[in-house]
C-alpha cells in the first residue's frame, strides 16, 4: 500500500521546525510507527512531513534534581534500556518495554506516542501514575502541562496547531518504592486491551503512597484516584487490594469492540489493577 505524495523536510532547529509546521497540512514525523501505517492506508495524507530527527535538544535523557527529563524524540528502546531510567524511574522503562515489538520500539518515540494519543497506548497508564508533565513549545514560547491535562480524549491532546511536545518529565522514584505495569495484550495488534500501572511506597508496613494509572479501558487514560485513596493506609494485603480495585471503572464509559466488551474490559481493569498493585507492593521495601 502506497502513501500519497508529500514534501519531506528535516529542520535543523526548532525555529525551522515551527516555520514548517505553520502550514496546517504539515505533520510531524517523530518515529512514524503510527503515522506511516496510516499514510500507507491513505487515512493520513499530510502534504509535508517534518522529520524532527535533526532538531537538536529533542533527544536525550537527563536527571535534574529529583526530576528525570526525557526528550520527545527518545525512542522506546532507549527508555527501556537506559540504566538511568531503569534505576531512577523503573516504571517508565517497564512501560516502554511493553510497547509493540522490538522494531517498533527501535523507532517509535515517547513524544510521537503522546502526541498521537492512541487510547490503548502503553505510556499513559504509567505517566498518569507518575503524574508526569509534558513540556510543549511553540513559536510564541513554552508551556508545561500535566499529563492529565495533556491527554484530552481519544486521539485528542492539548496541543494547539503549531505546537510541539519537546520533553516529558517524571519524578525520580522514591527510595524503596515498588512499581509495576500490567497489561492485557490484544493478541493481534499488541495494543493494550487494558493496562494498569501502579506505584506504591510503604511505610511501617502500610501503604503510605499509591498512584494508579489506567489505559485502554476507555477513550482516554486516567489516574484512578479512588483506588489510590482506598489503598493508602492499608497493609496492602489481598483483601485490601480487592476492595480498592472494585470501583476502578466506576463512572468510566468503557470501550467495547470485537476484542473485548465493555463489561469484560471493566473486569480486566480490576484484575490487572490488582496484579499491578500486588506486584508493586511486593517490590516495595
Amino acid at each position, binding site marked *: 500500500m502506497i502513501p500519497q505524495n508529500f514534501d519531506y523536510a528535516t529542520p535543523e532547529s526548532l525555529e525551522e521546525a515551527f516555520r514548517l509546521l505553520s502550514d496546517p497540512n504539515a*505533520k510531524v514525523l517523530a518515529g512514524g510507527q*503510527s*503515522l506511516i*501505517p*496510516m*499514510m500507507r*492506508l*491513505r*487515512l*493520513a*495524507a*499530510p502534504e509535508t512531513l517534518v522529520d524532527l530527527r535533526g532538531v537538536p535538544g529533542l533527544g536525550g535523557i537527563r536527571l535534574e534534581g529529583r526530576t528525570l527529563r526525557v526528550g520527545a524524540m527518545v525512542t522506546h528502546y532507549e527508555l527501556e534500556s537506559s540504566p538511568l531510567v531503569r534505576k531512577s524511574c523503573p516504571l517508565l522503562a517497564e512501560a516502554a518495554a511493553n510497547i509493540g515489538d522490538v522494531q517498533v520500539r527501535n523507532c517509535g518515540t515517547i513524544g510521537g506516542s503522546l*502526541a*498521537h*494519543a*492512541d*487510547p*490503548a497506548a502503553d505510556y499513559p497508564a504509567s505517566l498518569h501514575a507518575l503524574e508526569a508533565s509534558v513540556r510543549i513549545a511553540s513559536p510564541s514560547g513554552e508551556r508545561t502541562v500535566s499529563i492529565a491535562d495533556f491527554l484530552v*480524549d*481519544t*486521539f*485528542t491532546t492539548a496541543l494547539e496547531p503549531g505546537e510541539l511536545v519537546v520533553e516529558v518529565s517524571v519524578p525520580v522514584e522514591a527510595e524503596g518504592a515498588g512499581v509495576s505495569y500490567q497489561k492485557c495484550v*490484544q493478541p493481534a*495488534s499488541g*495494543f493494550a486491551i487494558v493496562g494498569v500501572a501502579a506505584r506504591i511506597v510503604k511505610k511501617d508496613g502500610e501503604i503510605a503512597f499509591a498512584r494508579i494509572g489506567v489505559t485502554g479501558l*476507555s*477513550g482516554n487514560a486516567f489516574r484512578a484516584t479512588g483506588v489510590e485513596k482506598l489503598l493508602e493506609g492499608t497493609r496492602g494485603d489481598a483483601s485490601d487490594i480487592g476492595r480498592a480495585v472494585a470501583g476502578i471503572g466506576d463512572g468510566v*464509559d468503557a*470501550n*467495547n*469492540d*470485537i*476484542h473485548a466488551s465493555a463489561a469484560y474490559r471493566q473486569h480486566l481493569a480490576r484484575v490487572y489493577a490488582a496484579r499491578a498493585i500486588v506486584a508493586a507492593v511486593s517490590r516495595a521495601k
Partner: protein
Amino acid sequence: MKIAGSHTLPFAPERAYNLLQDPQILAACMPGCEQLVKIAEDTYQMKMKMVLAAISGQFDGKVRIADPNPHTSFRLIVEGTGKIGFMKGDGRLTLAPKDTGTEVAYEGDVQVGGTMAAVGQRLIDTTSKMMIKRFFDKLCEKAGSA
C-alpha cells in the same frame, strides 16, 4: 457494531428535541460538518471533513431524521462516503427529563467500511463515542449561547 451511551443536556426535553432536529444546530455541532443542505423533508445532504489525530478524510453523505416521536424519541441516520471508506450510523435517540435537563440516550449501529475498517476495530467504538461527545458538548455550547 452496536453502540450505546447517554448525555445530559441542560434543557427541557421539548427544547432538546427541537435543537436536535434543527439543521442549523446539527450543521454547527456535527464534528467536521462543512455543509448541510436540505434535499427532502427530514433529509439533508452533508459534506464533512473528519480530522482525528493523523487520520483525515473528506466525506459526502446524508443525514436523515426518521420515526419522529415528538419530544421523546427519533431515529437519526448519518451516512458518509469518501476515498477512505464509508460510515453509517443508525440510531435511536430517546429523551427523558432528568432534573431540570434532559437525558438523551442513544442506541444504534455504526458501520464502517473501506480502508477505514482496516486500521483496527478497536478504534471504531472509542472514536464514535468521542465524536458523539463532541457533538453534545458543542450542542450545549451553541444552544447555551443562543
